């Protein structure tokens, strides 16, 4: 076997490309169950908010707690406990504090606008995540941003039902789609 530096460079480039695609695929599969969970949380919390709008804050606090705890349990099963670093937690805390500070500064008073605002932020996070982990996750972010903008600006009757079906449904479908990647 004769291997020139050009052959070696070509082989290493091929290895890098295939390994990247494989990592992206694994990322999709790992993200699927978490997305399905968040879709269910989103769907149920929005339906509860439609029925009891004055308790929206409580429902979201409870729903977010379930979502984060569930994601914490699901990700180690698919990616290995070692992958969850203090950086992930720090990123999450920074994002939450920034979102809360932005909502306060913008003086968002309406619970519906606040819901649309946080949905928009979640969509943006997916888009940023997608820049690193693959076009499917980026596309999911775009879809969430578009839904939150359209529903948030048009304020249709039964706003929360729209958010439940579109936002929650989109996350659940995306989760199944990613799992099958």
């Amino acid at each position: 076997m004769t291997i020139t530096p050009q052959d070696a460079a070509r082989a290493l480039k091929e290895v890098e490309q295939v390994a990247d695609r494989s990592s992206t695929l694994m990322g999709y599969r790992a993200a699927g169950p978490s997305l399905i969970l968040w879709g269910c949380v989103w769907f149920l919390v929005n339906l509860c908010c439609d029925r009891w709008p004055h308790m929206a804050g409580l429902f979201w606090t409870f729903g977010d707690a379930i979502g984060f705890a569930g994601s914490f349990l699901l990700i180690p099963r698919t990616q290995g406990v070692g992958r969850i670093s203090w950086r992930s937690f720090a990123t999450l805390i920074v994002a939450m504090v920034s979102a809360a500070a932005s909502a306060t500064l913008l003086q968002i008073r309406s619970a519906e606008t606040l819901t649309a605002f946080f949905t928009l932020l979640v969509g943006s996070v997916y888009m940023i995540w997608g820049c690193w982990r693959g076009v499917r996750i980026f596309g999911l972010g775009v879809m969430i941003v578009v839904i939150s903008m359209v529903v948030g600006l048009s304020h249709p009757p039964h706003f929360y039902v729209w958010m439940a079906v579109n936002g929650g449904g989109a996350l659940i479908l995306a989760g199944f789609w990613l799992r099958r990647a």
Partner: protein
Amino acid sequence: MEPNDVIHQSTRLRLMAALYPLPVDQRLEFKQLKALSGATDGNLGGHLATLEKAGYVLIEKDFVGKRPRTRASLTKDGRRAFARHLEFLRDILDQGRDGGAADRYRP
């Protein structure tokens, strides 16, 4: 350092590269390996069998409902052999960059 003839073949190199980033308890299915390696069904089966025979890949066959499923993962030996082969390729590349006498490997 020696090249690994089993791994260096183009399709098998892609198969090993696809399996290498996986955590220890994860596997890739046949259709995913096919997409990642760009191989045909027949080719893929043959190359996987070669890697399995070398002890580099573990093949598991089962059923999901009534559908047969084939999954593959790297063995410890496979992971080690692939890492060594990558190191070998990087050495060749470095020697080429340095303009050294050994600008090509001939066993």
